[in-house]
């Protein structure tokens, strides 16, 4: 439990965990950011968003939204850690004194949990498919052009010649969450940091091997000389500058930056809370972001779309890009690997890559709730892990069994899009306007190992919030309202969608109650 420091008046976090090394925290945050989206979502957004021209709004968003928000989250987190807090409600209450913000900020613990509840299942598919790649099951299905059936059978959506029940998928899911919680149990430094320091370099090496394989394919089908590596890269990078006049491309690019850097989730805030007050955040935040961009643009951008182009040509590649991440990752890619020499090896590497990208992200999604229970209730690691394991296991059940009815998509909508955008807006407004940019800027530069250009002071206060308000407003009108109204949803799915919403409301209710108790347990000491 945090102790009162009689000399300074601030609550010092005695006994609170800390990162072991600077590289460790950078790789942990990078690991949190680098996920399935880097390899599945970005390439399709870029391909559909004007090819090379997409990089212009993408890089602009990186500068005006991504980097500023990254620094803000690190800064708020480190600040919270000074007072023994690792989660948004306590941190934002500490610096604003606003009870409304304290309860509102509960979404900073809820968001990563909601995402975890479906992300863990998807992550477990990667593990399973890595096995299927070497067992030959995938090659067999690919040969019969039945990879979609294979996936749906595995997911338990249908019962077919490949899978008569969901129980194998369930088994892989249990293994996956046990592995996740193993690293959580080992702690921040011995668990998450150690995992990240091993997993991230392996991820990069595997991705480079796969990129190398794709880029050395030449023209695999002599009867289709247009489907070559050069033409594939040309397709990905040729700029269609006319798209820069379309607001949807700017929105798509901004959204991609936002999601890819794991912003607005509360996880970076929690990770940063384990830093010391004098630790640098400017260089660390920039490095983690740069690492994510390397994995996304250079590695992710050179995998699925060029590969699809080389094997299927331009028209089909566009269709593939529109078909969604699951389809690309688990149907298209195995199909592609089945067509090349050494296919099973490369397919298993691909799924190991996805699994590693997934697990470094999923452990970060568990940690905010763990921090909440440890910091605010004083629970031991063992107690916290047992509670969270049980809760996660239970909460994943409806996701697994109701997947085909849209339960997963509904959690992704609320947790992965709506709340995320709202929380990021809250963070930046608190930092720049309520806490104040003067104090915020000073915090950001505390211990900084690079000089942050002073223009970012202006960007953080005015530009990033404006950007976020435009995103929030446009998405509310274009996306949120139709989804909330269940536009186009089949009747049979509606009860499950409502079930998901009640599920989410229940979690919010419980979280608000827990926050209320914690305030009564530990009334804030004056600054």
């Amino acid at each position: 439990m945090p102790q009162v420091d009689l000399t300074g008046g601030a609550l010092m976090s005695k006994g609170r965990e800390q990162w072991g090394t600077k590289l460790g925290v950078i790789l942990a945050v990078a690991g949190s950011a680098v996920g399935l989206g880097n390899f599945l979502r970005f390439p399709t957004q870029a391909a559909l968003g004007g090819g090379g021209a997409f990089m212009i709004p993408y890089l602009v968003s990186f500068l005006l939204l991504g980097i500023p928000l990254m620094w803000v989250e690190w800064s708020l987190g480190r600040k919270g850690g000074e007072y023994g807090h690792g989660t948004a409600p306590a941190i934002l209450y500490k610096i604003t004194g606003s009870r409304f913000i304290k309860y509102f900020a509960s979404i900073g613990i809820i968001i990563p949990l909601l995402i975890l509840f479906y992300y863990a299942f998807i992550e477990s598919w990667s593990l399973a498919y890595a096995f299927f790649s070497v067992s030959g099951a995938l090659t067999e299905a690919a040969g019969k052009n039945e990879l979609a059936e294979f996936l749906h059978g595995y997911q338990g959506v249908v019962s077919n010649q490949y899978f008569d029940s969901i129980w194998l998928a369930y088994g892989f899911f249990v293994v996956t969450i046990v592995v996740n919680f193993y690293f959580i149990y080992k702690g921040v430094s011995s668990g998450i940091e150690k995992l990240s320091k091993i997993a991230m370099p392996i991820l990069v090496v595997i991705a480079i091997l796969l990129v190398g394989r794709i880029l050395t394919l030449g023209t695999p089908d002599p009867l289709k000389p247009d489907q070559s590596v050069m033409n594939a890269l040309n397709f990905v990078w040729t700029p269609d500058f006319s798209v820069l006049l379309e607001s949807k491309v700017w929105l798509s690019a901004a959204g991609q930056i936002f999601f890819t850097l794991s912003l607005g989730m509360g996880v970076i805030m929690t990770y940063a809370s384990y830093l010391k007050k004098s630790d640098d955040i400017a260089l660390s935040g920039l490095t983690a972001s740069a690492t994510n961009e390397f994995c996304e643009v250079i590695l992710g951008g050179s995998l699925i779309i060029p590969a699809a182009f080389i094997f299927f040509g331009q028209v089909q590649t566009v269709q593939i890009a529109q078909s969604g991440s699951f389809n690309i990752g688990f149907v298209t890619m195995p199909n592609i690997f089945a067509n090349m020499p050494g296919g099973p090896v490369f397919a298993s590497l691909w799924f190991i890559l996805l699994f590693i990208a997934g697990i470094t992200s999923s452990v970060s999604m568990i940690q905010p709730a763990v921090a909440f229970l440890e910091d605010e209730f004083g629970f031991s690691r063992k107690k916290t892990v047992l509670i969270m394991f049980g809760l996660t296991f239970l909460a994943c059940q409806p996701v697994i069994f109701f997947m085909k009815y849209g339960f997963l998509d509904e959690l992704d909508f609320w947790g992965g899009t709506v709340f995320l955008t709202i929380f990021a807006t809250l963070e930046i407004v608190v930092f720049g306007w309520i806490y104040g940019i003067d104090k915020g800027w000073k915090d950001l530069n505390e211990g900084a190992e690079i000089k942050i250009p002073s223009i970012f002071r202006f960007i953080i206060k005015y530009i990033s919030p404006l950007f976020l308000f435009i995103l929030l407003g446009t998405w509310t009108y274009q996306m949120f309202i139709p989804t909330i109204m269940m536009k186009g949803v089949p009747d049979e799915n509606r009860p499950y969608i409502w079930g998901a919403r009640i599920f989410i409301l229940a979690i919010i209710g419980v979280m608000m109650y827990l926050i209320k108790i914690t305030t009564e347990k530990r009334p804030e000491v004056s600054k």
Partner: protein
Amino acid sequence: MSMSAAILMVAVWGIIIALCVFCFYKVFSKKD
């Protein structure tokens, strides 16, 4: 590969790689 595609790809890759090299150089050149 068209000229504009090549220029864009080299420019973007260059910026990202340069940023990574700069950052990791600074990280490793400081003692923990």
